[in-house]
């Protein structure tokens, strides 16, 4: 049996799809920024061994790493309802992605920090640098080089996983695609275009990240 493709309808709806793509980027960027901020705090808590905070951080990290993203989204969207908290699809997906990003990035940051040899501290100290100067000029720049690549991957992962918004009726790229195809039943056409758009977004992000890294890290490592 032959399938006949009809692309016109998809082209007509292109503005809406692009709008969906914008929401996808929007939610992923926000999830990344918030995730980074929380992960810094969690990583500090884990490394300081200050009991209650360290405990919270450990539980957070383990739940985020060991349960599916879809579970997190359902938890935010349906589960919190039990407490009378009703989140919009956007906020539900955003909070799930923030939760997971923070969990994974905590371990990334911790690993990056611990990978800097302690001799770099004594060398800086011996030159008369204060602790703040040591972190600012010696430790953090090296750490950033080591966590940059995993952070880029986490960002790409966020973009791809935000597609789960389709299951809670969010109007990001997948959700928009789902809504539009249901109006016209051109399922294949719409989802092929969505797939291409995801591919392009991912590649653009990776390309941008590698350009940026070349500017940021002129040096080795």
């Amino acid at each position, binding site marked *: 049996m032959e399938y006949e493709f009809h692309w016109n309808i998809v082209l007509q709806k292109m503005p809406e799809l692009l709008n969906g793509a914008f929401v996808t980027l929007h939610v992923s960027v926000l999830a990344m920024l918030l995730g980074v901020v929380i992960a810094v705090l969690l990583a500090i808590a884990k490394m300081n061994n200050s009991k209650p905070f360290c405990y919270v951080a450990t539980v957070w990290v383990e739940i985020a790493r060991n349960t599916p993203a879809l579970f997190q989204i359902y938890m935010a969207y349906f589960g919190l309802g039990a407490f009378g908290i009703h989140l919009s699809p956007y906020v539900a997906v955003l909070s799930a992605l923030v939760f997971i990003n923070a969990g994974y990035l905590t371990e990334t940051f911790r690993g990056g920090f611990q990978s800097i040899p302690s001799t770099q501290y004594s060398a800086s100290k011996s*030159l*008369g640098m204060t602790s703040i100067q040591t972190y600012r000029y010696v430790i953090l720049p*090296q750490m950033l080089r080591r966590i940059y690549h995993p952070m880029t991957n986490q960002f790409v992962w966020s973009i791809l996983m935000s597609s789960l918004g389709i299951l809670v009726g969010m109007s990001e790229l997948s959700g928009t695609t789902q809504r539009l195809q249901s109006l016209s039943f051109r399922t294949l056409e719409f989802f092929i275009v969505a797939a291409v758009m995801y591919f392009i977004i991912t590649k653009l992000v990776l390309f941008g990240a590698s350009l940026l890294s070349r500017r940021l890290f002129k040096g080795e*490592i």
Partner: protein
Amino acid sequence: MISVQNVHKSFGDLEVLKGVSLDVPNGEVVSVIGGSGSGKSTLLYCINAIETINSGKILVNDIDVHSKDTNKDKLRQKLGMVFQQFNAFPHMTVLENAALAPRIVKKMSKDEAMEIAKKELKHVGLGDKFDVYPTRMSGGQQQRLAIARALAMKPDFMLLDEVTSALDPELVGEVLETLRLLAEEGMTMICVTHEMGFARDVSDRVAYFHQGVIAEIGEAKQVINDPQNELTQKFLSKVR
């Protein structure tokens, strides 16, 4: 002048310095030799206030290193230190490595800091490596960078902690040659070293460390060629 007065230092139950006294007047080069674990490196870390001490006193230019009132970051500017591991900052070029501390610690202008860094790099023979990243250099070159980086702070003293131990044998010479140059220029230095030839030829005095105390100290050629203490004799016969 560096004056170490009856210093004791323990790590937990392990006492590594058991009453060490040593005076190093300006312009003198003292080599410290001894078996591993004898506490000789710890002494350097205590002089630089990277380690605390349990009792005794260390004076650097008459400033009490371990007093609460001493600004340790300020003090360390007077004490250049080079370590066994090269400790170059891998994310910076050779020039940036040497110019960093003058710029941010001494608050020099960028040009001034670069000027000094270039001068010291040429001094140690790295005049053609300014824009190279340290990971691209040999161990010997990295160690000379570490020396230049310390010299760029215009220290009054240099503390050298087994600076050739991590080097391939063929690279040891270039680093020792740099140190000999510094000694000839009158830099005050304390060198913890395993290079007996260097200790004999370059330093004024040699101190033999044994189990946390200075077992023997004296004029360099005499200690190496004709040690008086039985322990020193035993040690030297083993390393030769």
